[in-house]
């Protein structure tokens, strides 16, 4: 069961990522990125991270990708055009990435002593304690200050986004 679930959703993940590269229209790329993120959420579930799976769907597949599709539609982005720069970047880039992936793969496949992943194994084996309890205990006791700082960061990001994206003559037209 575990093997089947992993293969199906890892396949979805890779297919979505490859489709993102092959599509020339940004809206198609955005939709395949949603497929990647949703199947990653299932893989998180398989690894016993329930909270992160739900957060992945809400934050990434929901909020961030809605923002992306909204911007694609707002700017009316069309097909991308091939230029001289992209032709030069291809051979060099592909070689570099293949080397990078080969190094990663050798290191990963040589690692010994990794546990097998099984269904129903979370971070805790206590019967009455879910993952969520463990996570919230650490997050809201030990790491409360970083959590609160993150909320300030998001507030600043919202204000910055509004300030950057605002049309430059907006104030003057409002005054008139």
């Amino acid at each position, binding site marked *: 069961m575990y093997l089947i679930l992993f293969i199906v959703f890892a396949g979805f993940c*890779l297919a979505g990522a490859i489709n993102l*590269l092959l599509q020339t229209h940004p809206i198609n790329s955005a939709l395949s990125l949603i497929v990647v993120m949703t199947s990653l959420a299932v893989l998180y579930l398989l690894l016993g*991270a329930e909270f992160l799976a739900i957060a992945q769907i809400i934050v990434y597949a929901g909020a961030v990708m809605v923002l992306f599709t909204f911007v694609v539609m707002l700017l009316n*982005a069309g097909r991308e055009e091939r230029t001289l720069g992209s032709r030069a970047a291809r051979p060099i880039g592909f070689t570099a990435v293949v080397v990078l992936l080969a190094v990663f793969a050798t290191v990963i496949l040589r690692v010994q002593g990794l546990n097998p992943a099984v269904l129903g194994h979370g971070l805790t084996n206590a019967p009455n304690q879910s993952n969520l309890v463990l996570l919230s205990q650490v997050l809201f006791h030990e790491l409360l200050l970083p959590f609160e700082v993150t909320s300030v*960061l998001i507030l600043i990001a919202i204000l910055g986004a509004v300030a950057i994206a605002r049309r430059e003559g907006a104030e003057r037209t409002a005054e008139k």
Partner: protein
Amino acid sequence: MSLLNHAIPLNWYLLLSAVLFSLGVIGFLIKRNLITVFMSIELMLNAVNLTFVTFAYQWNAVKGQIFVFFVMMVAAAEAAVGLAIIIAVFRARGTLAVDRINLMKL
């Protein structure tokens, strides 16, 4: 029956994550649309998150999952600011092709 109860090694997750990261790098290099380049960055962030979750599972470390939570929050803020910058660039230049956006000044 053995297929149903088969447990998979964690190396597969790490390998999947490495492949996703490499696809993100390729997208970053070959895509010529500003928004798609930004999407490739998000793909790389997701690949790294999968590695974090895998190692959290390996060592039963809850802080690994919390780190992924923080990465998600920062990525959300980054997406908001980045897309605002893309809108500002489009207003100033009227194009999204990265080859045409080659000057810092307006």
